[in-house]
């Protein structure tokens, strides 16, 4: 059934991505591909992996944007422009258009936790769900002819054969900078909900009226290098030297 759950799901499992912390290392991209190519559903195929025209299916990709404030200058570290690394995967929207457009019922949103999934045995590969998604969260696998998307690692988060700390999406587990957080965004007391409230987490493209579950935390205000400079002690300053170094300082001064 491709209609959305009748009532809004109480549990809303999703991700919170901290744009202030992400360093753009693409580790989440690779760990996602690695886990998901051997797990839920068909493998994530590559086309011409060793040829000139390499392409493949990924469920998570990292874009890098440059943001320039109005009137700001783009001159390296000293300018006002800043680079923001931007990981993007399925946002598990509450009003997911990819679910309602599906003609076969393959695309569905789970009532119990809000995860949006594709039943790959009934997907006909028409591609309409990818057209309806403003976020580019769905990619057709050209080898299998079915639509692939982030499953929120549904085969990890409930997997009792894994250690407790591994029962989170692969991208979250692997992020070396701790820029990705996983939790229940339907519970206002959860760590992720508190984080969103404190940091002013936001939705992507709210005007598309999809009510995404995943939230993004904005980069913190930037302190320019110039304003940080006076805080750095001067190299010539020997004040506070003690013991042998105080003696050496005095002796060298006398010479």
């Amino acid at each position, binding site marked *: 059934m*491709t209609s959305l759950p009748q009532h809004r799901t109480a549990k809303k499992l999703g991700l919170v991505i901290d744009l202030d912390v992400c360093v753009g290392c*693409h580790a989440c991209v690779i760990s996602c591909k690695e886990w998901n190519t051997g797990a839920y559903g068909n493998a994530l195929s590559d086309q011409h992996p060793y040829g000139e*025209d*390499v*392409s493949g*299916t*990924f469920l998570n*990709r*990292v*874009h*890098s*944007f*440059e*943001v*320039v*404030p109005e009137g*700001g200058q783009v001159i390296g570290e000293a300018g*006002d422009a*800043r*680079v923001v690394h*931007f990981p*993007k995967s399925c946002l598990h929207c509450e009003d997911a*258009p990819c*679910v*309602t*457009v*599906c*003609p*076969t*019922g*393959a695309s569905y949103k789970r009532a119990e936790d809000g995860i949006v999934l594709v039943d790959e045995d009934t*997907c*006909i*590969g*028409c*591609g*309409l769900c*990818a*057209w*309806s*998604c*403003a*976020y*580019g969260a769905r*990619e*057709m*696998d*050209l080898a299998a*002819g*079915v*639509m692939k998307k982030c499953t929120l690692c549904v085969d990890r988060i409930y997997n009792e054969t894994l250690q407790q700390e591994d029962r989170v999406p692969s991208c979250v587990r692997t992020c070396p900078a701790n820029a990705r957080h996983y939790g229940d965004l339907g519970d206002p007391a959860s760590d992720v909900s508190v984080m969103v409230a404190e940091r002013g987490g*936001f939705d*992507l*493209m*709210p*005007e*598309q009226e999809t009510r995404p579950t995943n939230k*993004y935390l*904005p*980069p913190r205000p930037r302190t320019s290098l110039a304003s940080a400079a006076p805080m750095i002690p001067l190299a010539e300053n020997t004040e506070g030297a003690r013991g042998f170094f105080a003696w050496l300082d005095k002796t060298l001064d006398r010479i």
Partner: protein
Amino acid sequence: MHPAYSIIIFTTLSGLGYGLAVILGLGFLDPSALPTKIAYLTALALIGMGLLSSLLHLGNPQRAWRALSQWRSSWLSREGVMAIATFVPLVLSAALCLFADRYDTVLGLISVLGALVTVYSTSMIYASLKTVDSWHTHLTPLCFLLFSLAGGLLLGSLFASFDAQRGLPLQLLALLFLLFALVAKMVWRKRARTLIATSTPESATGLGSIGKVRLLERPHALDNYLTREMGFRVARKHASKLWLIAFVSGAILPIIALLIAMSIGESVVSIALLAIAILLHLLGVFVERWLFFAEAKHAVMNYY
């Protein structure tokens, strides 16, 4: 958006076929005449070819039957259901005409309704997508319906051209609907050219509060499914020429051909003119449909 030939051929041919089915269903043509029998077969062939072509772009066409299940929410599913449902009255009407020289009003009107709802459903697949601004308007179904009816009337007037009494009203209606279709498409295009995009790189990244957002580095060096499917770009200079071809070939030349055919009256020349008008119209609609996809900008490209 990537202009897939399977979808362009499907919407063009089935649109024309359903247009002709409407004319047949309304009883414009004499059921005892041979051209009417050929018209029924033509309508069925056009619709059938269109539907088969639409299966070609599926990743798993052997499961296409599953697409009939989600008519409650999906316009694509509704289209599939309606297309198959419309075959029933249409095939029955065709059989009545072919074997009994008869036209049944009830069957005819049911197939008219089915044909119109099917074309409407096809157009709503596109018009319901909020992600493509130029499609997301009521003008999209209006254009699809008017093009379908104009084509059907044009094809109908060819099959009726052997019968002066029935031919003239169809030719006049064809003229009228070609004009309607032309005007509707021009309004559609003006809207598409002047609209302000719903989403921007700033809203897509949520970084608009900091400043202007520009892509610094793509996630990957080469194309992926998304950039191939949603990122199709057509050179602007070609687009304006193609629009001219679409308008001239799709509506203006057929209108001129119709006017000449009407002034000549019943003759071999007028039949030939109408046949040429249909081919020109098909070419025009084909180019129009190509541009419909090729020029459409998808919201996901705000990330690329």
